[in-house]
């Protein structure tokens, strides 16, 4: 899961990135509206945390532009002006949820999780696929109740697959969603993570679809 944070205050941006990373997501940060808009427009994010008061281009405008160009990903807006006028404007511009500053990180993470879940059509924080259970709240996976020990990259790969059960996910797509923008990417490493995951999971859960990518076997 790859998240974009658009926040101009550097310390808060760093705290947000830190907090979101701690639950197993990958985070990119933009510090102004123009950069934020460009990144949201060009990179495949799973959700965006967008501050309303941004330099160069305000958050509402950025959001409207994304929506106008057909970006449907969930967007959580952060507002410092705790007025309903701003919240209505934000929602009408296409936001999915709002949070007023100052906020508790737990609350932000909970909202973010809910938005990603909602976007994938899930009703619960728990994702189940056969014997495999993924709890997005605690960032843990278990097989038949036995907790798995996963590295953060392994968790991200598994979480992305579990958010798209039964779908074919290409290697490139996985790479896009498990690495931050400025990370030195190598799609071969995805194969390594898949291989490691297969060892930890019951056999046959992750299928390889030749020439296309991977698929989580729902029937299992």
């Amino acid at each position, binding site marked *: 899961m790859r998240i974009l944070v658009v926040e101009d*205050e550097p310390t808060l941006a760093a*705290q947000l990135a830190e907090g979101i990373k701690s639950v197993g997501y990958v985070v990119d940060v933009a510090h102004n509206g123009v950069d934020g808009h460009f990144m949201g427009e060009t990179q495949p994010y799973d959700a965006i945390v967008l501050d309303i008061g941004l330099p160069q281009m305000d958050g509402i405008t950025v959001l409207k532009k994304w929506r106008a160009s057909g970006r449907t990903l969930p967007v959580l807006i952060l507002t*410092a002006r705790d*007025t309903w006028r701003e919240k209505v404007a934000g*929602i009408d511009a296409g936001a999915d949820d709002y949070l007023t*500053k*100052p906020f508790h990180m737990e609350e932000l993470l909970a909202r973010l999780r809910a938005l990603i879940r909602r976007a994938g059509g899930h009703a619960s924080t728990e994702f189940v696929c056969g014997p495999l259970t993924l709890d997005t709240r605690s960032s843990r996976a278990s097989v038949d109740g036995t907790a798995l020990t996963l590295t953060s990259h392994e968790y991200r790969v598994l979480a992305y697959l579990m958010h798209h059960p039964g779908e074919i996910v290409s290697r490139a797509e996985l790479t896009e969603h498990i690495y931050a923008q400025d990370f030195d990417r190598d799609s071969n490493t995805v194969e390594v993570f898949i291989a490691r995951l297969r060892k930890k999971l019951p056999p046959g859960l992750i299928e390889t679809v030749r020439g296309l990518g991977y698929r989580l076997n729902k029937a299992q």
Partner: protein
Amino acid sequence: MKIAFLRNSLRIRLLAGTLVWIVISILVAGWGLGQLFHQHVEAQFDVELKNHLDQLTAQLILDEQNQAQVRLLPSDPRLNKPLSGLYWQIDRITAAVERPVKAVLRSRSLWDETLVVPADAPADGEIYQHRIEGPHGVALRVVERTVTIDTHSLMLMVAANESLMTAPIADFKGHLWLALGILGMGLTFAASMQVFVGLAPLRSMQDALGRVRHGDARNMEGTFPSEIMPLVNEFNTVLAQNAEVVERARTQAGNLAHALKTPLSVLSNAANAPEKRDDDLARLVTSQVDTVRKQVDYHLSRAQAAASVQVPGMRTSVEPVIQGLVRVMQRVHAERHLVFVVIPDEASLSFRGEEQDLQEMLGNLIDNASKWARSRIEIQVSDESGKLRVSIDDDGKGIAETERDHVLKRGVRADEQVPGTGLGLAITADLAQMYGGDLVLAKSSLGGLQASLILPAV
């Protein structure tokens, strides 16, 4: 009080001033014209009497017995008609007796009456005038002269009923006053029209102001005479400045909130970092940040509302505000599939106040209802004897009667498990009261809480 009313009405002042002058002018003109006519008629009358006297004098002779005789009687037919009102008479004046011998000759019109004039002796050629009482007590105007032939002195007099002179004068005066009265009424009507037309712009200015106060217009509209236009322009400038001051206050309050809240977020997040969470200092920071946030929210909303309550001409449609807030709630609580029912008011009343304040009040109430509701929220707008009433019902667990007053007090949360409640209700109650309205909590027919906002309407 009546005097004050007279003094305070421009219309009455102008009308009274004009009326006084009209009445004075008409009285003076009437009296003057009457006098002039009177003098003229009197002079004419006297000339006529003297003509008769001259005629009589010319025909006067003494016969052999030294008796006065009139050779040719004056021709005026009235002198032959008894008591016609025009008379002549000749008296003999004897030296021995002061009282002259009465009426040696007289006109036929005198019949057997005698003219009695005061005893006097005009010098030869002089003509005297008297007012005497004639036949049947009628007032007569008399001219007399003394004529001496040889040693015989005779007094010649011609008299006429004064009514022959006064009747046309009275008649004239009657017509004169009637004409002047009509003139006066015309002038009064003209003056009233002038005052009415002249003051009409004031009336339309009052209407324009009324529309501003009612919120139908943002400033005074229409064209006014050049004497009043500067006043209207000045007033519009004041209105615009007022609105600008409020807008600036809002922006600045918003900026302050923005400036404060981002650092507060940083502080709160730093204190909540996993490795610090159990630290005493971190806990203190967390709780204090929360307090600061509440204080800022509370006082900001108050300051903003305080500024806009003062501004006239505000009018906000209720339904668009509700729809906007419902859109927010439906999006934010998407997975709960809440049902929002909005029952608009048939009379379509508007809120007399700033849109943002209505948004704050309704936002807090609808947000609160959405947090607590199980599945259904009903929002009803109605007219409560001229005031706007917005009731928000939910089917949640509600607030116990004993708790209701408590939650309206600032910063008290009825239940900590749903974040943000309590303060929102207190802010809403405060805002409503600043607008002269109220927030009433009751048990809803849906089972949960019913929050009713009562606000001034337009």
